[in-house]
């Protein structure tokens, strides 16, 4: 095996990922760590002239670094002191409240990096930056089902306490900063959409544009998940890529060079991430989307392993807990990986270079992403959507156009209402079609299967096979060159 720079880079970053992964799953004995340190040093001293050896010992160090990084966060989540008295605090809301069907989740800070989730009534008009008085007894979140580690899911965002039935009172108005200004624009755009498009189409519209299925009723959310369509309303690399594609077309129409248009698109992605309030899901989507865009621009979709790995490592350095406890993280990463890794097959046998807007591209990308995320979905949600592929084919093709019209409608709502209405109506028909497809497919009795004993073994077998397939592809690929 030849070790070039890119391979060394790959190995080192992978070691970090593996370190985080190991510590996510297992308690690691301190003696094992010392053993590895000593092993690393010994190998290095004995054979320091050999490039492979240096790489190997460095890899061990970085592996340990990964363990150390996540260990710090895991320790933080243990031994959380309980509150035995009610607290009465006046705090600022540090995130945009998340509206659910029966309540809204409001996040405030108790002390640095110790956040409290307050479950406030829906009718309270609460916004980012508002000062509120909270009276409640904070509880440590409980896991209600064996499948879902709610406590760690919250802990990954530094939320260690929850107030299920608080008394909340707004005591002061918005703290104004750039962030609240941007959020305000987003909220106004959503309001513009709601003004011209009825529900549930409007909720889908806003979900497509800004992410999130919270606007949909529970019934419809279930229909989306049964048909494997939830990803279109989740902020994912997918909708970011579409936005970027539009911006590139727009830039080229303005007379920019392709290269300049590409930077315009990158800037647009950045703005988009800011606009929806910097949630980790959007940052992730922004990174993954930018990478895909960049790779497609250069026409080498298959060669961005290192870039993806780097993005993942950076995200894990910032928040190592997401690797195991954030399903969104896993899905986003795997879907991107799927698209990238399967592309050589498709390009060879079907379509030529991927451009992401044609029918064949969409079908193939969907299949690639699905193959890679399916085990995670089955493992966590115990359902296998039978109609997913069909639903995706029927819907994905018109999503870009839908997004365009929703966006135009939202934007023109600021300027000229009738124009917003006209755009809104076109968008309405498209959205209505999408929702109808989802509803009809979800209502079929066999639309999804319950899979209860998939388990870790299923995961291992599936990803083992995928790994083998990917290796096989890259081998045959290399031979031809």
């Amino acid at each position, binding site marked *: 095996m030849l070790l070039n720079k890119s391979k060394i880079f790959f190995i080192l970053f992978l070691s970090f990922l593996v370190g985080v992964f190991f510590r996510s799953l297992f308690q690691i004995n301190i003696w094992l760590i010392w053993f590895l340190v000593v092993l690393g040093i010994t190998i290095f001293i004995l054979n320091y002239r050999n490039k492979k050896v240096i790489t190997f010992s460095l890899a061990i160090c970085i592996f340990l670094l990964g363990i150390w990084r996540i260990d710090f966060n895991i320790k933080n989540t243990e031994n959380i002191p309980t509150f035995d008295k009610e607290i009465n605090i006046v705090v600022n809301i540090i995130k945009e409240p998340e509206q659910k069907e029966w309540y809204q989740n409001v996040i405030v800070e108790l002390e640095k990096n110790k956040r409290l989730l307050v479950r406030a009534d829906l009718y309270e008009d609460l916004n980012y930056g508002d000062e509120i008085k909270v009276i409640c007894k904070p509880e440590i979140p409980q896991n209600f089902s064996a499948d879902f580690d709610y406590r760690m899911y919250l802990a990954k965002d530094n939320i260690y306490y929850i107030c299920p039935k608080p008394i909340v009172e707004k005591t002061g108005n918005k703290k104004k900063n750039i962030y609240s200004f941007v959020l305000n624009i987003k909220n106004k755009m959503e309001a513009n959409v*709601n003004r011209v498009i*009825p529900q*549930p189409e409007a909720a889908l519209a806003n979900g497509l544009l800004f992410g999130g299925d919270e606007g949909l009723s529970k019934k419809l959310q279930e229909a989306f998940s049964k048909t494997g369509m939830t990803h279109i309303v989740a902020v994912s690399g997918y909708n970011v890529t579409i936005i970027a594609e539009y911006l590139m077309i727009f830039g080229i129409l303005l007379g920019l060079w392709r290269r300049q248009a590409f930077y315009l698109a990158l800037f647009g992605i950045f703005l988009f991430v800011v606009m929806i309030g910097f949630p980790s899901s959007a940052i992730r989507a922004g990174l993954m989307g930018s990478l895909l865009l960049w790779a497609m621009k250069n026409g080498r979709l298959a060669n961005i392993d290192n870039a993806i790995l780097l993005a993942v490592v950076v995200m894990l350095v910032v928040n190592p807990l997401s690797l195991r406890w954030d399903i969104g993280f896993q899905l986003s990463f795997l879907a991107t990986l799927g698209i990238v890794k399967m592309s050589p097959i498709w390009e060879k046998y079907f379509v030529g270079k991927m451009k992401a807007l044609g029918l064949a591209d969409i079908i193939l990308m969907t299949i690639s992403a699905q193959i890679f995320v399916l085990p995670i979905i089955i493992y966590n949600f115990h359902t296998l959507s039978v109609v997913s592929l069909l639903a995706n084919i029927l819907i994905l093709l018109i999503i870009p156009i839908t997004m365009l019209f929703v966006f135009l409608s939202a934007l023109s709502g600021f300027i000229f209402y009738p124009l917003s209405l006209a755009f809104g109506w076109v968008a309405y028909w498209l959205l209505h079609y999408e929702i109808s497809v989802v509803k009809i497919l979800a209502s079929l009795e066999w639309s999804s299967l319950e899979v209860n004993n998939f388990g870790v073994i299923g995961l291992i077998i599936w990803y083992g096979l995928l790994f083998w397939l990917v290796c096989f592809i890259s081998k045959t690929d290399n031979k031809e060159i």
Partner: protein
Amino acid sequence: MRNKKVIYSSLIFLFFMSIALGFIIFSLKKNKDIKVVFLDVGQGDAILIEEGSNQILIDGGRSGRTLLEKLGENIPFWDRKIETIIVTHPDADHYGGLASVLDNYEVKNIIKTDAVKENKEWKNFEEKIIDENLENVKSIYGMNIIFANETRLQTIYPFGKVENAKDSNENSVVMRLDFGENSFLLTGDITAKIENLLVNSGVDIDVDVLKVAHHGSKNSSSDSFLKATSPEDAIISVGAKNSYGHPHKDVLEKLKNRLIRIWRTDEDGDIVYTCRNINEKCQVY
């Protein structure tokens, strides 16, 4: 390049199509059908009466999100105006969803009694009504809303001014809807006591369709009331697996014994009566 042309021309096509469709729909606006829809909003009541582009919404269930979806399905997409909202009484399963309607639709009037609830949610709702500058019409006994084609919605209870009684259910607004040969009785959450008051009051409560009071609770739907109303259809607006045990099995039994057809929102979803002609029976879908 060809690909791009296809995209652009289809965009332009869709745009013009929507404008054309808009005109078609506007001309359809003069539609004379009456629709009475008992919306499936889970545990709670929400009844939509629609004539062309005029809507009256009686109560709004518990969840704004569900209600808005239901309205979106039942009101033409271009119509963002609801003429009148009626709140039968201040219980959350009857008005909880209405705040979102005020946010998302242009609402002209709101009709409610003087009954209030001493909680924040109700206060917020009342503040919202003031903020939105609605005409706040009190529900007065005998008040009629008359539609274009001889459809009449009449308030038959409460008889007089509502005292701020503890039991809001007993002050629930009761309405009768007449369309030619067809009649509906919408009873809110009244108890057997009020039912008997109505039976003895001499008001005409003999109808074809009865919205069973209080989601089929055992404290409502007395024998004398069922006899006096003698409906063919009974509607039970109830959520699946609700914690109240609604509808009560005794009530279901009583209805069955009287050979009344039972419609339940938890099993049948939205129950839609379409009335095309004053001389014809309304059809259920």
